[in-house]
Every structure is written in structure tokens, then in C-alpha cells.
């Protein structure tokens, strides 16, 4: 039996690999560890997991040598807005090498950022679908930003430039509006984002009556590392938040999940401050408008009243004249009527008197006596019946021109 040395064996493996697999391969894998070296290289560990995500199906070391890393790193970050990190799915062009001491490893030649972006987009989409399914995706958007969003809870990193910009812009707004800002510190990059932003949200929620809106902002760094805002838990908390949430997390690419569920999404902290100032400006304009309308309406009303009074005072004399004439006519009529009345009455009375006079004249006994009649009296009383008389009565017969005495025999 012929034995060979380990070095010889490894040498054969190495040359076989070189001979059999000389090409570069595009490989899909997930990064399970990443460590940049002091010399400027970058060491990766790549894995492939099964469908459950718990078990490894394959694993390999991969090295990105300094020269390649210096080109690939900025290119990848510019394209994706992310740094290479654990858990990221990548598409790498690799050559296969074998080193007698260090064993099997891959050497990265190139990277395709679109694959990673596609994977992040797919993850975002999955999260959004889940939020939609859970019925929370539009909840925060249904809230109304109050007319005067002056009391602002800011979730940001205390050291972030964006926070300072935001605060200064509000404080120095040209209109002189007053704002009240309180910072609830949270990590804005790295693995702690989800946990610390949620805990800041909870702190705001405990004092929700003290605030009108919540603003999540961070200053834009060279690399935005937005994937930490593509988190189901964070999005769920934002969507369910009792106050309107505005995000200004500084980026140009597609919206993060946090942006989608927020009430309003702007690009930068400065834009967030502008948004708030504009909202208050609109409100102030509305007040100006109302004030102007008020004074216009009052002026108009007063003018109308003035015109009304003037018109009335002009009309008054002629109205009065008409009234006077009318009253005079009434009086005149009354006068005529009363004069006529009196006259008629007098005439009627005169007529009546005349009749009475005639009647009286006709009844005068003297007139009757003159006509040839005579009046017979017995003891001073007129005799009306023969039967009232007896023999021996002394009668007085009255004529128009005198009287005689006689005795019945």
C-alpha cells in the first residue's frame, strides 16, 4: 500500500479543483457571518438553509480580497442602500479554491446587488401582505393630523444630525409659530432599531394626550440601512399607534414598510419640519381668512344698515306728506258728512214741526166754531150725548163770536 502525505493529498485536491472547475460561478447564498479584516479584506460565511430556515443544507467560506472589496463595497451600498450583513441574501460571482492549509473556500469576484434588492423587496412585500391581511395597514392613515400640530414627539437618535435640523427648522420658522418638541431617543441604525423604536413609541403612547403627532426621523448617512425599517413588528406598532405618525428617515429608494404604514411619509427630517410648518401655516391662513371675512361681513352689514336708515329718512317727509293729505281728506269728508247730517236733521225737524202745527191748527175749537159748529156745555162741561140732558137743565151754547144761555123745556 502506497501512502502519500497530507500535503500531497491536499495538493491533488487543489489541482483537481483547478482543473475541473476553473470557471467563475454565480452563486445564490445567505450571509451567516461577515468580518472585515484589518488588512482590508472581507471574510464571509455563506449558507443555504432548508425551507424551515432552521437547518443548513450547505455552507462555505468566502473571501473578498482587498482589491475587489474596495470596488464592490461602495458599488453594492450605492445600489442597495445597505451594507452587506448577516441574514442578507446575495448573488456572488465566485471562483472555487482549495488551500492546503485553510481548505475549501470561495473567492468573490463580483456581486449582483439587484438580487439582494429583489430579495429585500420580496420580504417587504410579504410583510405588507401580512399587515394587509391583519387589517392594520391603513389604520394610522385614517387618523387626522390636527389643525395645529404643535406638540411633537420625536423618535430619533439624540446624536443624529437630522434631529438637530428638525428642531432648528421648527424653532426658526419664518412665521413665528410656536412648537413644543420632545425627543424620545432610539437607535436609528443597526440591529436595535426595531426594539428601541417600538419602546420609544410605547413611551409616547403612555403620554398620548400630551402630543399631537409623532415623528420618526434620522439623518441620512452614507449608507441608509433601511432594511431595519422593513420590520413587521415595527410596522404593526406604527399602524396601531393612536397618534398620527410621520416618517422622515432619509432615503431616495422605495418606501420602507414603516413609511407605508405611517400616516405621512417624507424623505428627510427637514421635509418633516416643513410638512408640520405648512400644516400650521394652512391653519393660520384659515384664521386670517376668517378674520378678513368677519370684518368684511361686518362692514357690509353696517353699510347695508346705513343705506337702509338713509333711505328711510329720505322717504319719511314724502311719506308724511302723503299721510297728511290722506288724513286731511278724511277730515274733510267727515266735516262734509257732519254738516250734511246736521242740515238734514234740521230739515226733518222743521218738517215735523210744520205737520204738528197744521194738526194743531185743525184741532183748534175756535176754528171749528167758525165753520158753523157750536159747543153745548152743562155746568161748564161739554155735552156729548142727548141722554145726559133732562128737563130744566140750563145749557150754555158757545159760538165763535159769543155764547147764549137756554133752558130745556
Amino acid at each position, binding site marked *: 500500500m502506497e501512502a502519500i502525505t497530507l500535503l500531497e493529498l491536499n495538493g491533488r485536491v487543489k489541482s483537481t479543483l483547478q482543473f475541473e472547475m476553473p470557471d467563475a460561478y454565480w452563486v445564490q447564498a445567505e450571509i451567516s457571518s461577515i468580518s472585515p479584516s484589518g488588512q482590508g479584506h472581507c471574510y464571509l460565511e455563506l449558507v443555504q438553509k432548508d425551507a424551515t430556515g432552521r437547518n443548513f443544507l450547505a455552507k462555505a467560506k468566502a473571501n473578498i480580497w482587498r482589491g475587489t472589496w474596495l470596488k464592490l463595497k461602495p458599488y453594492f451600498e450605492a445600489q442597495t442602500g445597505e451594507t452587506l450583513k448577516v441574514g442578507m441574501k446575495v448573488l456572488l460571482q465566485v471562483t472555487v479554491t482549495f488551500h492546503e492549509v485553510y481548505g475549501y473556500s470561495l473567492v468573490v469576484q463580483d456581486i449582483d446587488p439587484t438580487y439582494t434588492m429583489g430579495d429585500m423587496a420580496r420580504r417587504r412585500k410579504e410583510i405588507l401582505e401580512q399587515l394587509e391581511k391583519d387589517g392594520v395597514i391603513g389604520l394610522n392613515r385614517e387618523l387626522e393630523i*390636527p*389643525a*395645529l400640530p*404643535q*406638540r411633537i414627539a420625536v423618535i430619533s437618535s439624540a446624536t443624529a444630525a437630522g434631529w438637530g435640523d428638525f428642531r432648528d427648522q421648527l424653532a426658526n420658522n419664518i412665521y*413665528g*409659530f*410656536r412648537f*413644543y*418638541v*420632545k425627543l424620545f431617543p432610539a437607535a436609528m441604525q443597526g440591529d436595535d432599531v426595531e426594539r428601541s423604536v417600538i419602546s420609544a413609541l410605547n*413611551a409616547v403612547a*403612555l*403620554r398620548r394626550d*400630551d402630543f399631537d403627532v409623532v415623528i420618526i426621523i434620522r439623518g441620512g448617512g452614507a449608507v441608509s440601512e433601511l432594511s431595519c425599517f422593513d420590520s413587521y413588528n415595527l410596522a404593526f406598532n406604527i399602524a396601531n399607534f393612536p397618534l398620527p405618525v410621520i416618517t422622515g428617515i432619509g432615503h431616495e429608494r422605495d418606501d420602507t414598510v414603516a413609511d407605508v404604514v405611517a400616516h405621512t411619509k417624507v424623505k428627510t427630517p427637514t421635509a418633516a419640519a416643513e410638512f408640520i410648518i405648512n400644516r*400650521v401655516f394652512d*391653519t*393660520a391662513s*384659515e*384664521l386670517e381668512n*376668517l*378674520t378678513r*371675512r*368677519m370684518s368684511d*361681513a*361686518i362692514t357690509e*352689514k353696517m353699510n347695508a*344698515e346705513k343705506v337702509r336708515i338713509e333711505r328711510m329718512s329720505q322717504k319719511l317727509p314724502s311719506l308724511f306728506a302723503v299721510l297728511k293729505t290722506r288724513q286731511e281728506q278724511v277730515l274733510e269728508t267727515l266735516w262734509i258728512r257732519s254738516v250734511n247730517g246736521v242740515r238734514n236733521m234740521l230739515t226733518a225737524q222743521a218738517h215735523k214741526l210744520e205737520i204738528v202745527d197744521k194738526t194743531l191748527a185743525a184741532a183748534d175749537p175756535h176754528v171749528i166754531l167758525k165753520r158753523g159748529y157750536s159747543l153745548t156745555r152743562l155746568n161748564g162741561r161739554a155735552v156729548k150725548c142727548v141722554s145726559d140732558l133732562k128737563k130744566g137743565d140750563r145749557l150754555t151754547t158757545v159760538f165763535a163770536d159769543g155764547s147764549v144761555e137756554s133752558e130745556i123745556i
Partner: protein
Amino acid sequence: MKYEEAMKRLDEIVSGIEENKMDIDQIGESLKEARELIKFCKDKLYKTDEEIKKILETED
């Protein structure tokens, strides 16, 4: 009173005058109320509310 309530009331008053729903005697009263509302709103916009400031400055 809240800012939005004040604005709503102000709007009611102004509309009332514009639509000629008020007589001169009422307008005097309304004008007084409107002035107070406008002042209230302007103060909210432009003057620092020490009360709010104090509330927000208290540490949790």
C-alpha cells in the same frame, strides 16, 4: 377650549353674519365673541404656552 373648536365657532359666527342671519344687536355680541376667539387662536399660534412647555419638559 381646543383650537379646532374655536375655529369652528368662529366659522359659524362669520357665516351667520355673511348669510344675514343676525340682527344688529346680535352682531355686537358676536363681534365680541369673534374677537376673543381670534385672540385665542393667535395666542396658540404665536405665543409660547408655558403650561405645555412645562408638561413636555417633565422627564418620564
